[in-house]
Structure formats: structure tokens, C-alpha cells
């Protein structure tokens, strides 16, 4: 049993209903969300676009008032200044004061935590170093690329050396190198004993990083548990093989195993309908002295998993609590 001091974030039947349009039609963005985030874990908040992830995070940050239910951070009600003093937040696609340089920008946020003087200067330099932005320290933010903005955004979230770091879609819009850097940074934060809560709609990110994940769909929690359980549920759907110099008669042998064949000159791409056909297909490749270029198993996408969860389970599934 977890003691309450080990729970960094707690929500209980948290709900938010917005009124939209001229007639104030009610739209439920988050519906009865109950979950806990434990000290020191990396917690992934997953779901397709529009699932209610951002709304939930905004409620935790005190940006949106919940319609009903309760939420607390470090035992303080959300929105409490004592809770905010110990957390760092990076919003989705962040926009910052573009007339500031990175140094001015970080110093401004430091001031909001009461940091001053040499201690603040040192902290700013450390963070710029951490996110690899030392070279751009005196450049105005309006000249930054999206990746650079994301980096200084992460730096501002860490200015107060927070115990809880909340990142909303931290990898979205980044190139593969940028994504890897963000992943490394999250792992470094975990090593430093921080609790990290981040949202994403990409299963791959969660697989690599998270201890536990919560899956949301249409404002409801559809599953919450350890990431390995989630991944096992997403069994391989099809396997893609790219082969060079496969003789046409051999390809004809392979056809019954495939769902689709795309031929381009000497190169052929075959999509096997199931993992069980892989060995047989490889035999054919070997026997014909063709060259296997790549073999890629494809899992169900997160969206597909969610659809299955939504149709298969009408109530929240607790796997490991």
C-alpha cells in the first residue's frame, strides 16, 4: 500500500465540462478521472488528439477550474501557490515572449520564484548548458526554430529545480534528434529523482520512457497501468519486408503469405499478413539468393489500440495499481 506522501499527483473523479458556441452547448472534456502519480516515476498520459489530456494537465496546473471532483499536487489542492512552487510545466507547442533573449527569458521566470543575483545567473547558465542553448543565449526568441523554443521551454520548466515536471506533448513537432534529446532529458530527470508526468499520443515514446501510463479516450480513463502490459496488448499486426533481386517465380510462391506486394525495379516490398509467415518468407528469400534489405514488424497504432479499448471495455481497466 502506498503512503499518501508517495503520491505526487492525485485526482479523484476530476471532471470538466465546457460550454461552447452561441447556445452554450455542454461538452465534456474530462469525465470522472481518478488516478495517482507516484514519487520518482515517469508517468505517461496517452490518448489521441482531443482525448482530454491537455485539459487534465491544465486543471492540474491551475489554468482551468475543474467542474467537479478533486485534484491535489504534493497534498496541496491544485492551483495552490505552495504546489506550484515545486513543479515545472511545459505547455503544448509553447509560445514565449519572443522579444526576450534566452537569458532574459530564463531570468524573468527565475524572478517569479524569488531567485536573484549570482545564484540565478548560475542557474540560468546551467540550464542553457543542459538544453544545449549556450550559443544562443543572447539571441531573441523570435529568431528561434521550433526545436530551439522547445529547449528553452524545457529550461524554463526546470528553473526552480522542481520535484515534479509536467510536459504537455514535449516531443511533438520535433525532428528525430530533438525527440531523442527530449527522451534523454526525461530519463536524466528520473535519475535525478524527479517525478515526470508527460502527455503524448505516440506509443513509442511511452514504451521507451514510462514506468506507468494512463490511457484516455473521449475524456475517460480507459486503462491505467505499467507500460509493459499496454505494449503486450498491442500485438504485431503485420510485417513489412523489403527484398532485392527476388525472382518472379519465387515471388509467386510468396504471394499467398502476403497482403500486399509493391514492386519497384529490382526491389520488392511485401507486407506479410501475420508474424507466423515470417520464417516461411525468409526461407523463400534464402533459397532464391535474393537479398533481404529490411524486415519491420508493425504494431497496432495507438489510435487503433484506443479504438479497441473503447469498444471492448466500457469501464476503466486497472491492470497494476
Amino acid at each position, binding site marked *: 500500500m502506498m503512503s499518501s506522501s508517495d503520491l505526487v499527483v492525485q485526482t479523484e473523479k476530476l471532471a470538466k465540462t465546457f460550454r461552447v458556441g452561441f447556445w452554450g452547448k455542454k461538452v465534456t472534456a474530462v469525465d470522472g478521472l481518478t488516478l495517482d502519480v507516484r514519487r520518482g516515476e515517469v508517468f505517461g498520459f496517452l490518448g489521441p488528439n482531443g482525448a482530454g489530456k491537455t485539459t487534465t494537465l491544465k486543471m492540474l496546473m491551475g*489554468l482551468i477550474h475543474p467542474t467537479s471532483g478533486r485534484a491535489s499536487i504534493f497534498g496541496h489542492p491544485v492551483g495552490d501557490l505552495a504546489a506550484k512552487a515545486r513543479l515545472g510545466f511545459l505547455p503544448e507547442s509553447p509560445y514565449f515572449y519572443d522579444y526576450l533573449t534566452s537569458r532574459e527569458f530564463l531570468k524573468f521566470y527565475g524572478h517569479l520564484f524569488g531567485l536573484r543575483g549570482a545564484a540565478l545567473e548560475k542557474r540560468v547558465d546551467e540550464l542553457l548548458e543542459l538544453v544545449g542553448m549556450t550559443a544562443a543565449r543572447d539571441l531573441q526568441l523570435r529568431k528561434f526554430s521550433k526545436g530551439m523554443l522547445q529547449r528553452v521551454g524545457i529550461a524554463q520548466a526546470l528553473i526552480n529545480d522542481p520535484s515534479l515536471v509536467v510536459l504537455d506533448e514535449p516531443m511533438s513537432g520535433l525532428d528525430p534528434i530533438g525527440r531523442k534529446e527530449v527522451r534523454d532529458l526525461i530519463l536524466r530527470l528520473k535519475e535525478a529523482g524527479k517525478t515526470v508526468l508527460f502527455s503524448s499520443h505516440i506509443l513509442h515514446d511511452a514504451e521507451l520512457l514510462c514506468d506507468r501510463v494512463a490511457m484516455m479516450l473521449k475524456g475517460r480513463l480507459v486503462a491505467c497501468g505499467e507500460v509493459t502490459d499496454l505494449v503486450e496488448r498491442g500485438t504485431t499486426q503485420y510485417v513489412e519486408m523489403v527484398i532485392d533481386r527476388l525472382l518472379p517465380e519465387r515471388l509467386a510462391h510468396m504471394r499467398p503469405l502476403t497482403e500486399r506486394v509493391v514492386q519497384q525495379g529490382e526491389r520488392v516490398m511485401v507486407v506479410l499478413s501475420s508474424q507466423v509467415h515470417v520464417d516461411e518468407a525468409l526461407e523463400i528469400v534464402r533459397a532464391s539468393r535474393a537479398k533481404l534489405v529490411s524486415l519491420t514488424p508493425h504494431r497496432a497504432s495507438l489510435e487503433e489500440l484506443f479504438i479497441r479499448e473503447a469498444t471492448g471495455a466500457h469501464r476503466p481497466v486497472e491492470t497494476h495499481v
Partner: protein
Amino acid sequence: MKVWSIAVNTFRENLRDKLLYNLLVFALLMIGSSLLLMHVTLGEFHRLLLDVGLGSVNIFSVLIAVFVGIGLVNKEIEKKTIYTIVSKPVARYEFLLGKYLGLTITLLVNLLVMTAGLLAVLVAQAVPVEAVLFKAMGLILLECMVVTAVALLFSTFTSATLSAIFTLATYVIGHLTADLKTFGGKMGEGGQALLDGLYYVLPNLERFNLKGHVTHHLEVQTAELLLIVAYGLAYIALLLVSASVIFQRRDFR
């Protein structure tokens, strides 16, 4: 201190905004243009210089108050910069107060630049400068602070365009509240009650207008001046408290 940091940041934002410089250059051109107008005017040169000069300072200060004022909060919400501020240990009223204070500093600095421009023109033309001129300038600043607070209040719950319209309307009506009372006196009971209500609710901006005193060389009693300042500050406080109450309840989607 958080309020002060936000104020300094707002001031810095204003300083790096082109709109401010455009308005300031136009104001200085207007003040300078009074020198040209002198050549096509018969007599009363001194009065003309003071009239055009003070009028320019007033109009451009109000324009800065309105057009920078409506963006104070709206821009933060539209650009989503507010997400990172409100998630820090900053109370929402501290944020509003900081933004307000920042623009007040901007207005003060602008007013000082424009006053320097006007004084240069006056000294060049050997116009005697009286103390009441500085009192008039001070009240222009106070009027702009009221207008900024009005803009801030509107921008906490409506769009930038609507805030601009409402604030400009409040500014115009604010100079005509005496007419509202007179007009109300000539109406039936219901109409009178309504216009009397408006007279007391809307800011009486004409109270901050000492331009007539300057051009006619009239002094203002200290007691009266203090009363006007107290009225202005009380009105600003009321607007800021209302803005904070609305802002506290707002969701940032």
C-alpha cells in the same frame, strides 16, 4: 517582487514594440507642427502652442493606454504565454497588477519624452512655463491610468477588438458625463435615474482636464488637486479589483 518582475517585463515588451515608437514619433511631430501653425495664425501664439502641444500629449497618451492596454492580457492569452506564468507560483491578481504597473511605467516614460518635446518648443518660442502645466501633465497621466484600467478590465473577459471599442467608448462618454446629468434632468423619472446611474458609474474624465487652466493661466487649488487624484486612484482600484475577480474565475483553454 513578482509584481515588479512582471511590470519590468511588460515595460521591456512595450519598449520593443514598434507601435509605441510610431505613436511617440507622431506625437512629437504634432507638437513640432504647432511651430508651423504659428505662421498661419493671427495673434495668441502662446495659447496655440500650449493648446496643440497639450492636446497632442493627451491624445497620444490615451491612444497608447488604449491600444497597448487592450493587448496587456489578451495578447498573453492569445499567444498562450500566460500558461507558463499562471503555472508558476504567481497569483492571478499579481499578474494583472504587474501588467498594469508595467504599462503605467511605459506611459510615464512616454509622457516625460513628450513633455520634454513640448518644453523644447515652448522655451524656443520664449513662452513662459508655469507650474500648472506640470499639474496638467500629471493629470493626463492619471487619466491614462484610469483608461488603462478600463482597457484591462474589458480585456479580462472579451476580445481585443471589443475591448478597444468599449474602452474608446468609455473614454468618449467619460468626457461627456456632465452632459449625461444635464440630459437626465430633462427626462422623465426613469430616464433620469438611468442617466444619473451612468453618471456615477462611468469615470468622469473631464475632471482630469486642466488644459483650460494652462492656456488661461489659472491656478488649481491643492485641495482640489488632491481630491481629483484621490478620485482617480479610487476609481483605478475599483477597476483593478473587478478585473482581478473576473480573471480569477477565467479558464485558459
